[in-house]
């Protein structure tokens, strides 16, 4: 259980529901890293836009090269998720 309140997809309304519906369309589910940010749809939306822009948008670095960076950063931070 996360340490603060999370709004699960079934209880989401308004802007949060739109973000979660788009996540389900894209990934088939709402990842926990999105749900843990559910109290603030404004920062959740901004966070996801930065994620998409930095990790998925066209770049001289390939998707796999950027995923390797993501993994080694998380390893260095001891962030298991």
């Amino acid at each position, binding site marked *: 259980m996360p340490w603060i309140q999370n709004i699960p997809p079934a209880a989401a309304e308004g802007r949060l529901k739109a973000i979660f519906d788009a996540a389900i369309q894209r990934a088939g589910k709402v990842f926990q890293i999105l749900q*843990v940010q559910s109290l603030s749809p404004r920062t959740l939306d901004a966070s996801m836009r930065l994620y998409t822009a930095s990790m998925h948008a066209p770049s001289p670095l*390939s998707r796999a090269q950027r995923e390797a960076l993501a*993994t080694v950063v998380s390893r260095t931070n001891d962030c298991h998720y």
Partner: protein
Amino acid sequence: MLAHAADFRSEVVKELGSTSGPWPAGFDAAGAEAALLSAAPLSFAWPRPMDTLLPFAIKLTASPGAMRRADLAPLRAAGLGDLAIHDAVQAIAYFNYINRVADGLGVDLEPEMAADPRDTRSPEPAGDTAGG
């Protein structure tokens, strides 16, 4: 870490199947993924430019105040231009940010993820039900 190791695995397979990918023929994707998850990610024989990007990412994450202009020199020598360097820093910075969101709020693991061997989050202390 686990979420993006899985994404690395699926993406590198796609790129190895393409003629324009950045990985050399015969690249050991499974060995690379294992190295990324290990305590010694640089022990693997990374091809260019990853052999310069990974130590750069580790330094920027572990000791950002120690960064110097000279830290970009190996990246440039590996053929990376300013936009590639910029994009690497944005990716590195995003994960430093989102790691802190995850670890500061106690994100739940996904069902498919192995348990955290250092997990100190359970059992839940009585009364700490996070309002949820």
